């Protein structure tokens, strides 16, 4: 039940309006304000307050009575004043009303051209890769368990990291390990596996997770590699096997630019696997929450799932980010640990326990305005995306991003999809000068600022490119980040506390609640072009190194 909430700002405005009207009622030529008028003013204020309080009280009483008679959901529609929305749209009590809905107002949808068409193709690549750099928290050179040339099945261990004892990082496909690619300081960047096209999996135990016991479930997850699909917050690292998280959050929502439509993905997921996945999570933690967005809320198959609290989120980006959502459901405080997982990865876990195979399949969108044919594909994690891009480009000077254009990672045209990504974004490189572009832009570009005429209309969708549209400067504009981050966090002050290495202030201002993707939109809108994601990661690394 939502009571009437007045912000401080509107209260102030009302107060001023009352004062002003009382004062202007005077004849300007007479003495400005007499003692009488002051009494009158006070009296008016008090009367208004009384009426207002009476209205709130009456509203609450009616709602309470309705709740007793009719139950929770329908009572919400009763009250002293009819809801304007209901008057216009008519009352709707659908399955959606059963779910808890959280509405977030602050944020900004970056509308880009080239959204994926709802057309699903199967895609098999010849090579797949496991990228240690995808997993945050690993040492630069993890311990290899197999050598080049090894024959592998899906779910066979490739390497492990000392920091995460017992967690194996495994091959997504069956085939031969053909190359270990290294980057700076011999850090391992990519472990490439040539697929044999059969997708044979190592054998794991099939069974109902609740009857297997927690130890066995954990062991199976860690040995199959499915464990690495969890992301642990704070810090956004690989889940720590020594910890039982306070809650696990399943994400079936995404509002980022060109994001996959989770309504479409859920239709193609096997809900039996998802259900068993939820059962697994219930073994690992006491609280399981399923997060939906506008699209996935409409899928009726979700209603059949049991064992998870379902919450729908509405609003502009970043309302679909799991971190922002957790802030509104069960905010992360110091000492809390929660895990997050994408629903398609949960289906992989479910299948592991249903059929005893490790098959990290997912549905991925290939999108961007420079693509001839943006569409959805079903593929196995770590796939080489070259065949998706080749022959599909309108222009050659492009950047391929694994993930969304705000928080994703740049890859080569023949690169591999990141393990946590379900989107390949392709966009034009903006490496050209623009004459007086800061004053009179020569083409439309996405922006939060109303100084751009198209922003006023809020209709357009854009062909964005990678130009920075200006140079980096010191923090000047204030209040900009707050406008696009619907959390009780002051990002600019948090960033400054990170820059000056103030440990306590970082903690106090809520660094534990954020990872890169949550501040990505703030970084996009930043007038001073500050690298917020980079600064935040430095702060997180600093805190992790202190613990």
């Amino acid at each position, binding site marked *: 039940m939502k009571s009437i909430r007045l912000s401080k700002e509107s209260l102030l405005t009302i107060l001023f309006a009352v004062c002003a009207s009382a004062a202007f009622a005077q004849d300007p030529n007479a003495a400005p304000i007499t003692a009488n008028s002051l009494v009158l003013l006070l009296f008016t204020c008090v009367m208004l307050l009384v009426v207002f309080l009476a209205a709130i009280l009456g509203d609450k009483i009616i709602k309470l009575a309705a709740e007793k008679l009719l139950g929770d959901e329908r009572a919400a529609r009763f009250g002293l004043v009819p809801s304007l929305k209901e008057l216009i749209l008519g009352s709707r009590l659908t399955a959606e009303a059963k779910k808890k809905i959280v509405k977030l107002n602050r944020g900004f949808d970056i509308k880009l051209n080239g959204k994926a068409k709802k057309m699903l193709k199967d895609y098999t690549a010849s090579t797949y890769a496991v990228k240690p750099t995808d997993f945050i928290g690993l040492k630069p050179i993890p311990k290899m368990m197999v050598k080049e040339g090894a024959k592998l099945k899906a779910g066979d261990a490739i390497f492990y990291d000392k920091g995460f004892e017992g967690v194996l990082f495994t091959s997504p496909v069956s085939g031969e390990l053909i190359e270990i690619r290294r980057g700076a300081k011999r850090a391992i960047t990519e472990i490439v596996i040539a697929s044999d096209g059969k997708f044979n999996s190592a054998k794991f135990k099939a069974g109902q997770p609740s009857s297997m016991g927690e130890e066995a479930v954990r062991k199976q997850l860690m040995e199959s590699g499915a464990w690495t699909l969890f992301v642990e917050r704070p810090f956004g690292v690989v889940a720590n096997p020594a910890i039982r998280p306070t809650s696990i959050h399943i994400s079936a929502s995404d509002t980022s630019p060109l994001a996959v439509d989770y309504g479409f993905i859920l239709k193609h997921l096997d809900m039996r696997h998802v259900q068993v996945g939820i059962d697994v999570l219930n073994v690992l933690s006491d609280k399981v929450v399923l997060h939906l967005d506008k699209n996935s809320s409409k899928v009726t198959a979700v209603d059949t799932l049991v064992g998870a609290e379902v919450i729908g989120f509405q609003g502009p980006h970043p309302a679909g980010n799991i971190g922002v959502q957790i802030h509104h459901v069960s905010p992360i405080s110091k000492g809390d640990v929660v895990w997050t997982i994408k629903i398609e990865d949960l289906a992989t876990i479910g299948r592991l326990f249903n059929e005893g195979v490790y098959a990290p399949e997912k549905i991925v969108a290939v999108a961007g305005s420079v693509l001839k044919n943006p569409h959805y594909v079903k593929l196995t994690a770590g796939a080489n995306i070259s065949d998706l891009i080749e022959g599909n480009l309108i222009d050659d000077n492009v950047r391929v991003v694994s993930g969304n254009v705000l928080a994703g990672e740049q890859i080569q045209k023949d690169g591999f999809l990141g393990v946590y990504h379900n989107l390949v974004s392709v966009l034009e490189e903006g490496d050209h000068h623009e004459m007086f572009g800061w*004053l009179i832009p020569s083409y439309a570009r996405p922006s939060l*600022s*109303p100084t751009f005429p198209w922003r006023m209309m809020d209709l357009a969708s854009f062909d964005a490119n990678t130009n920075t549209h200006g140079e980096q400067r010191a923090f000047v504009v204030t209040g900009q980040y707050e406008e696009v981050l619907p959390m009780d966090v002051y990002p600019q002050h948090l960033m400054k506390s990170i820059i000056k290495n103030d440990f306590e202030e970082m903690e106090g201002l809520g660094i534990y609640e954020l990872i890169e993707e949550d501040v990505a939109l703030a970084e996009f809108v930043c007038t001073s072009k500050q690298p917020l994601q980079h600064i935040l990661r430095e702060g997180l690394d600093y805190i992790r190194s202190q613990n």
Partner: protein
Amino acid sequence: MKFIRNFMDKIEPDKKDSPFLHTLWDGFDTFLYVPAHVTKSGTHIKDGMDLKRTMIHVVLAMQLAFIIGMYNIGHQHYFALGLFPDFFAGFWEKLLYGVLQYLPMLIVVHVVGLGIEFIFATKKGHAIEEGFLVSAFLIPLVMPPAIPLWIVALATAFSVVIAKEAFGGTGMNIFNVALIARVFVFFAFPAEISGDEIWVSPDYSWLHQGFSGIASLFGSNDFFSMNAAAVAVDGYTGATPLSLAAKGGWENVQAYTVSIADQTYQPYSVSNLLLGNVPGSVGEGSKIAIILGALFLAVTRIGSWRIMLSMVLGAAFMSIVLNIISVQYGAELTNPFISVPWYYQFLMGSVFFAMAFMATDPVTASGTSTGKWVYGFLIGVVGIIIRVLNPAYPEGWMLAILLLNVFAPLIDHVVLQQNIKRRLRRVKV
């Protein structure tokens, strides 16, 4: 247009050999062209907004006030001489006089300020920053029209070096740069900026003489020769509305009249005050133009509407309190200023100018939304207190804003502590 780009690429000086030239070239190049930089890490796309665009919109917002203010220099000049007493009479003469009086100031500020900025940018090895774009337009607007150019140059140099670069440049300063320039003049050359008569520019400079030929093209042969006959007209004192109000309240402001050629003029009627047909600093006059500029800033969300609204609320609140005091104890008090009806306080002086262009400077204001409400409200309150209750200063906004500049970080600190406490409470629950 390609040839301009090629030309710019060709003349690029070497960064190591001639760093100053390179900074100069870079400043000009980035003014002409948005660089071809692409994102390297973090987000792959960036908002079209950058600091240049932000700053230029502030400059755009003050253009109307700037043009009317410039014209008003001319108008006040001729009005003091008893010529063209109607606002729009002698339009070209007034405009030309105003432009010739004002432009040298604008140029001096730009040359001095930008020169220092380029030197510091070179020393620090980074690109020239845009903050001074706004300061350079604001500084002449807060100066009396008749101020000597060397004082303007000195004030600009002082404010850029001491108020800005000493703290680390754009975004790091604690005090509003343009206000520091004014406060420098205020305390170092009090004779130039306080007192009644200095708000009107009486003389003709060599520039005016040089352009008197051009003036004759518009049909005025008197442009230069009037100088000889320049005698202040009967009853004209050059007093500003604020000094009149301090002496005798609003009635005294309204009672002020000037007779020119058998006609009586009331210079400080409400409509004149709104239009900006009053002596004062160049930019502060036209309330209508400034309010339009403020609306432009609020709509484009360049300036914080929270600060503007709360500052008006604060000033209104304090004025109403003073009005109440004057009603209660009026007869015994010697300060007639407190009896000025609160809504007329807004028509006099530079309250709107300070609100639109000075208080909203994001670097020196509070950074949090709650903090902005407090910051603006306190500026309003303190500004009215200084203006009305302090006999030493004719106007309060400059000092009020500088004072609250000092307190802005403290206000933010309190707001942040509340946020931290909220988070700590959650842990206990």
